[in-house]
């Protein structure tokens, strides 16, 4: 165990970048929960779709990062749109159990289809940046992490602007805050639900694309991340979007510090220990609950 400040700072930066990517997944889950009042268990597989799209698009674009990222985000958003039109739009309000079974089944089906098509072998994804990175003194962080974290931060800023200042976003917040009042003023529930799913899955695709060059790409990667994302949504205060982002960054930091200072096996357990601790001390999460609270 080392208390070297450079090492601590390095771990902290790694933690924040990882946390921002976790936040993309958690925010997508919170958006879908807020508008459709369902838990999307297939969310992790949409992330995996984004990661695979990135893995295949990169060689097609001569390893150029940005065009491949756009393709991956679009692939996940389209997958989300299909998921909504074929399955989620058929659910009635309050059918939580049915939604769990349907999204869980879809999650398993997508996972195994991808495994059948591309095998379960993990893939290393290379980009134009390779393992190059930015160095500040003795601290080094790879460009793929910096760009991934930066893209997540930009995505959150855009999401905030959309939710706060556009009709598209206000309708989503209105349905999440008070469904009957929203229906009363003529807000179209299915249009808003479809928009929420597409937006959430686009964010999820961005997370998958950004994680692809940082982690190994494999069919099970989404399932591994989705349970962490559930924990984050709960720790952040169900429905509280800034809360989920803050909880995700906190988790990224905890994971990074635990991995750096303790035996690596504790890294994965840390998030769930943290979740249980938070739920015992503050049953509603660290931040105030709220139907799509954006500030």
């Amino acid at each position: 165990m080392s208390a070297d400040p450079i090492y601590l700072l390095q771990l902290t930066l790694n933690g924040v970048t990882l946390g921002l990517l976790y936040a993309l997944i958690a925010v997508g889950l919170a958006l879908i929960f807020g508008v459709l009042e369902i838990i999307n268990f297939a969310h992790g597989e949409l992330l995996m779709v984004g990661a695979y799209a990135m893995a295949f698009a990169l060689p097609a674009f001569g390893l150029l990062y940005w065009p491949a990222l756009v393709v991956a985000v679009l692939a996940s958003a389209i997958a989300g749109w299909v998921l909504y039109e074929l399955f989620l739009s058929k659910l009635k309000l309050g059918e939580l159990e049915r939604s769990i079974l349907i999204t869980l089944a879809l999650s398993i089906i997508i996972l195994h289809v991808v495994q059948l098509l591309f095998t379960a072998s993990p893939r290393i994804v290379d980009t134009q940046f390779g393992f190059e990175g930015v160095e500040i003194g003795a601290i080094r962080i790879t460009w793929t992490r910096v760009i991934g974290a930066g893209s997540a931060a930009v995505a959150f800023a855009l999401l905030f602007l959309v939710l706060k200042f556009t009709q598209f976003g206000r309708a989503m917040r209105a349905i999440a805050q008070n469904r009957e009042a929203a229906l009363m003023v003529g807000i179209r529930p299915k249009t808003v639900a479809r928009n929420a799913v597409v937006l959430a899955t686009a964010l999820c695709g961005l997370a998958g694309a950004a994680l692809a060059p940082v982690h190994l790409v494999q069919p099970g990667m989404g399932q591994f991340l989705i349970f962490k994302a559930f924990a984050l949504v709960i720790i952040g205060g169900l429905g509280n979007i800034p809360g989920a982002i803050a909880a995700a960054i906190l988790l990224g930091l905890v994971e990074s510090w635990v991995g750096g200072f303790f035996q690596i096996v504790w890294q994965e357990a840390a998030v769930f220990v943290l979740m249980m601790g938070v739920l015992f001390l503050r049953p509603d999460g660290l931040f105030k609950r709220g139907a799509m609270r954006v500030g």
Partner: protein
Amino acid sequence: MDARAEADADAGGTAVSAVLEVRDLHKAYAGVRAVDGVSFDVQAGSITGLIGPNGSGKSTTIDGISGFQPLDSGTVRLGGADITGMASHRIARAGLMRTFQTVRVYERLSLRENLMIAAQQFDAAGWIDELLRTKRYRGAIAAGEARARELTRMIGLMKYWEAPTGILSYGQKKLVALAAALMPKPRIVVLDEPVAGVNPTRIREVEEVLQTLNAAGETFLIVEHNVEFITTLCHHVIVLDQGRKLSEGSAEAIHADARVLEAYLGVAPELEEAEA
């Protein structure tokens, strides 16, 4: 074609003085007939009251009319067009707006935002207009803001224009819900117990607001327990009892109707005093 245009086309341009026509509504819950053959009209430009003791079927009737509860049978026509069984948001778009007994406003949004959400669901500008800030979008926003300001002035809450509605009193929130319902210039607004839970000193203010709005041409159907409020305000009153229409007529006629007094268990005057 939007729901209102559809309703207009369906009406075939016929002149109808009854903006809302309700015919033979039926709704039962587990064998209990909550609404049993209720029919009535609401004339354009009127304030019509719908009263009755607890369990008389008032709430079920308006939930059925506004699409928040499926009906077993019966028809509802708005401006001559059949809106029976339509989803609640489509009924709103066709021109029937409503408020709820327990106030429903977006507490974390400002008064202005609460009203603009209502306005923007009806303007023609789409998300591409919004993204590009086209002339059409800017025009729709300007018109919505002007309407929102006009209504906020009418309900006397202009000083709370940018304040989150969560800080307002219960009665003030009810006025915000009323203004939100009026934003798209609906054909009729159905008010579910607009003064229930409102401080008695504020009830007079609500009356004045509704009278001002009615003088400006708005049509209201009001469900209310407060008999004095209804008889002061309404041109026409419909009385329900045990899911059936018991009586209807002018406020004076209803006040003098022995069947109505009996429906209120013979304690109507006391009830009025207690609720006023």
